[in-house]
Every structure is written in structure tokens, then in C-alpha cells.
């Protein structure tokens, strides 16, 4: 029998998180600091709108790009949040989560052999999506001493004549790093200079602490060369609804809609109705959640300080990325021992790319009671490791 599989698919490494997930699922009594989603339920008024749409029998496909009403709301929301206007009829596409939009953007923009400079550590799907779109992934390892921000020097060093795209994501998963306006301005200059397009995954946009989010699309010369990926999952605690979107110049979005139409048809109708409600009336929920994450961020930063665990202070998302290299183990060894000895799951930094080696991703989307318990175990664990080292 012939090999049924594509060489390209076979060449992809399975996600490092998947591997860890399998280990954790064998351990039902383990607690966790490993999730990449909010701990809030979707606010009731949003859920209720989804239920109402079902009661009304709104159970059909929507137009491929998504309900126009929702696209109009997204357009207003983008104007409000990042100060960029997008035509709801031609420059907004509603997708099945931000993840689908990432895949579509790469596939719509890459020709075989085009290089994509992408930041690392970063979300697990960028690299495989680039590979599946016949692009050549070129990771830019970000450094802790730069607070995991991308510098223009790092970007320049990654650019070759074949570089077509830059993929960035701030606030960042897994580091929690953000990029401020002046950081992005320097990056934008390099992009314009080198005629690069940008895919900017801003799914954690609503979760910044003490600093307002800036989108690279809002900088001079960038709107026409940037596709912004966003979604409802993190801002409105709607991960399970699978609702995301992409906004960008018409000529790119049009091709993304074409692919979306053939692969997906349209995003779930119930989720789209709920999404309209989220954008219209979800602002105070977002504020409440942001405030709550921020308190937990302070709490866990303080706990790290007290146990002498080195960690740069992240200003976005709901992750901390402490350095664990002092213990003389790889991230995976550390995470595995932590799980086996203390029954706490946390994701090794290396799951987010080679440059995540030496770090651990800690999510603080947990109740204080859960954090208290897990941090107590972390302290006990690292005290023991330090004892072993002596």
C-alpha cells in the first residue's frame, strides 16, 4: 500500500504541549498552571444572546465573511481600540477562532520559498502554518534582557531578499511581553524599508496592564501591509465559541475569504450572534477581567520574588515566563519533575520554540486559592532543587 500521508505533514513535529498534555492526563489528581484560556465563564448576557439566537431558529449558514452586523461591530471596535478603520464589507473576515485566521493569512500571502520571519518564543501554530503554506520559517529568538520585545536589529538580522512576511504577536503567549508604540515604530520603519508584510496576532490586545495596547497597523505606512488577527476568546472569555477575525487590506482579505469559503463556509452562527452582543455590551466585563488578572499578576510576581525565582515583569496576557535555567535542567525535565514530584502541570518554555528553553510558562488564569496551593508546591520544589545543588 502506498503511504497515505503528505511528506510535509509528516515533517511537522507534534506540538510540545500535546506531549505534555498526554502525560498530565494520566494524572487525574494533578493541579495545573498550564492553561492558555481564561478562568471566567463567558459573561451571561453574551451566552444569553447565543441562546436567544437558537430560540429564534438562527441556525443557518451566514455569509462567508460573517454576519454583516458582526463585521460592522468589529469594524467599530477596531476603530475604538486601535484607531484604524476597516470597511466591514471588504476588509473584515469572521473566522473560527484566531487560529483559522492565522492559517488563512499565511496561505493567502505566501509563495513557495518565501521566508517568514517570526518571533519566538511564540504560539505553537505559527511555524506549522508557515510550513503548510510552503513558506520558510525563520525564527527570531527574542531575549529576556529585552523583555522579550523585538528589536529592529534582530529583525534586520533575520531579513534576506526572500523575506516577505513578519509574524508578530504582542501581548505575547507565552512570555506576556508587550511592545509599546515606540518599539513598534522602529519595527514599522524596517518593514516599510524592506517592503515586508506583517501578520500581527493581537488576540491578547485587551489584556495589557498599565500600558495601552498599540497595533502596528496603526503606524504610518503599515495599514496597507498588515493583517491584524484577533478574536473573542481571550477578551470576552469565549474560547469554546471558536470565534475570531482578521482585518486588513481588501486585496488580502478577499483571498482569505475565498479560502475560508472553501474550507469552512462560515463561522458558527450562534457564536456570531453572541459576538455581536460581546462587542456592543462587553466592555465592563473586559474591564473586570483585566483588573482581576492584574491583581493575580501582582500576587504571583510577589510570590516569585519571595522564592527568588527570576522573572521579568510581563505587562500583558495572563502568563509569566520565569527563568529556570539555574537548576541545571532543560525546561522539559523541570516541568516533568515538577509534575511527578509535586503534581503541578506547567508548560515547558521549549514548547514555544527553541528560544523558550530555560523557561517555564506559568498561567495565572486561576483562582487565588488555586494559585496559593500551586505556588506553595513550586516553592517547596525549588527549595528542594536548591538543596540538591548544594
Amino acid at each position: 500500500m502506498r503511504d497515505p500521508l503528505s511528506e510535509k505533514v509528516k515533517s511537522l513535529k507534534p506540538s510540545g504541549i500535546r506531549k505534555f498534555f498526554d502525560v498530565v492526563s494520566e494524572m487525574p489528581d494533578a493541579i495545573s498552571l498550564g492553561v492558555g484560556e481564561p478562568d471566567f465563564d463567558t459573561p451571561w448576557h453574551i451566552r444569553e444572546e447565543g441562546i436567544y439566537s437558537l430560540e429564534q431558529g438562527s441556525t443557518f449558514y451566514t455569509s462567508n465573511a460573517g454576519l454583516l452586523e458582526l463585521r460592522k461591530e468589529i469594524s467599530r471596535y477596531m476603530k475604538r481600540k486601535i484607531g484604524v478603520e476597516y470597511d466591514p464589507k471588504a476588509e473584515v473576515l469572521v473566522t473560527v477562532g484566531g487560529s483559522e485566521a492565522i492559517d488563512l493569512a499565511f496561505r493567502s500571502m505566501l509563495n513557495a520559498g518565501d521566508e517568514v520571519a517570526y518571533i519566538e518564543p511564540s504560539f505553537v501554530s505559527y511555524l506549522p502554518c508557515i510550513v503548510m503554506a510552503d513558506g520558510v520559517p525563520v525564527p527570531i529568538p527574542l531575549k529576556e534582557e529585552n523583555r522579550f520585545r523585538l528589536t529592529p536589529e534582530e529583525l534586520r538580522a533575520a531579513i534576506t531578499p526572500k523575506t516577505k512576511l513578519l509574524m508578530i504577536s504582542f501581548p505575547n503567549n507565552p512570555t506576556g511581553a508587550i511592545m509599546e508604540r515606540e518599539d513598534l515604530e522602529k519595527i514599522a520603519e524596517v518593514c516599510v524599508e524592506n517592503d515586508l508584510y506583517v501578520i500581527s496576532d493581537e488576540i491578547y490586545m485587551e489584556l495589557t496592564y498599565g500600558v495601552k495596547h498599540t497595533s502596528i497597523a496603526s503606524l504610518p505606512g503599515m495599514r496597507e501591509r498588515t493583517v491584524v488577527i484577533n478574536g473573542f476568546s481571550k477578551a470576552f472569555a469565549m474560547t469554546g465559541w471558536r470565534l475570531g477575525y482578521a482585518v486588513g487590506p481588501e486585496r488580502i482579505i478577499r483571498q482569505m475569504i475565498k479560502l475560508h469559503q472553501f474550507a469552512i463556509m462560515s463561522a458558527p452562527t450562534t457564536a456570531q450572534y453572541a459576538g455581536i452582543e460581546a462587542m456592543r455590551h462587553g466592555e465592563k466585563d473586559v474591564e473586570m477581567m483585566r483588573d482581576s488578572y492584574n491583581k493575580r499578576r501582582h500576587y504571583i510576581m510577589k510570590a516569585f520574588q519571595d522564592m527568588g525565582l527570576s522573572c521579568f515583569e510581563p505587562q500583558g496576557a495572563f502568563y509569566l515566563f520565569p527563568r529556570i535555567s539555574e537548576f541545571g535542567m532543560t525546561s522539559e525535565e523541570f516541568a516533568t519533575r515538577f509534575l511527578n514530584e509535586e503534581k503541578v502541570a506547567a508548560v515547558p518554555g521549549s514548547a514555544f520554540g527553541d528560544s523558550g528553553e530555560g523557561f517555564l510558562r506559568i498561567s495565572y488564569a486561576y483562582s487565588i486559592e488555586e494559585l496559593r496551593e500551586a505556588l506553595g508546591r513550586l516553592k517547596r520544589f525549588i527549595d528542594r532543587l536548591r538543596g540538591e545543588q548544594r
Partner: protein
Amino acid sequence: MDEKKVAVQEGILGLIEKNSKLSVPEIAAMLDRDQAEIAQAIAEMEEKRIICGYNTLINWENTVHEKVTALIEVEVTPQRGLGFDKIAERIYQYEEVNAVYLMSGAFDLTVFIEGRTMKEVAMFVSSKLSTLDSVLRTATHFVLKKYKDHGIVMVGQKKSERMKVTP
């Protein structure tokens, strides 16, 4: 009061309103303040009766303990110069009375009473409450089931469905 102080107060109240078990060091960490400042702010609020107590929310229905709660609408005659305060005091002094609110609308006071049995509560209303001079009328409603109390859902048990590790 200066803005910073108000922010600290509000931060503390926002946290302990939902969870009075938080310790001073924990509150201080979450608000990014030092412990002495938080301890002092709490002491001040206790002093000023901004913080009036630290109760525990108990769902008595899940215990073997027998307990009934009644909401009583009370219509009263306010007294010259004292308004409703005097009569409210005569009511809230009773140990059986859990809460007394002055209301707008068709009646004047809402009184929450707790007792072991319906009879006990009924006896209290007829012998103590209705007999007060200023009380014109009462209407007693027994609580049959508490679905939600103090912002906390009391029924059912929801287990988190989040997976333990996700990207």
C-alpha cells in the same frame, strides 16, 4: 481623603467583599502595596464601620441543621422627628432579626428573620413584631429555596471543564 487612599480602600473592599479569607500579605501582593499600609487601611475601615464584620456564607440546606428564613414586609407609622429610625431600631434589636431595610414603594421595612421552624418565625411575627405600636400591617413570606445569595450561586455544583494544559 486623597485619591491614593481611596484607591487602596476600594481595592481592599473589592477583594474582601468576595473573599474575606484573604490575608493581609495576599491583599498587599495583589494590590502591589506594602503590608503595613494595607493593615492600617483595614484597621481604619473597621474603626469607621466601613467594614462591619466578616461573615461566612453558609448553605444551611446542605447541613442537617433545620433553619427557616422569612422575609416580612412591614408597614409602619413613622414618628415625628424620628422618621423610621426609631421603629427600625425596635425591630433590629431582636436577635431573631437578621436584616432590616427601609424600602421605597408599597411598604416601609423589609425584615429578614431566621428561626428553627416556621412556627417559631410565625410566633415571633405575631407576638413581637405585629404588636409594636407603630406597626400597621405585616406580610410574611417564607424562603423556600436559595438559588443565589450574596452573588454566589448556591445550587448545583459546577466542575471546571477546562483542560489542564492548553496552548
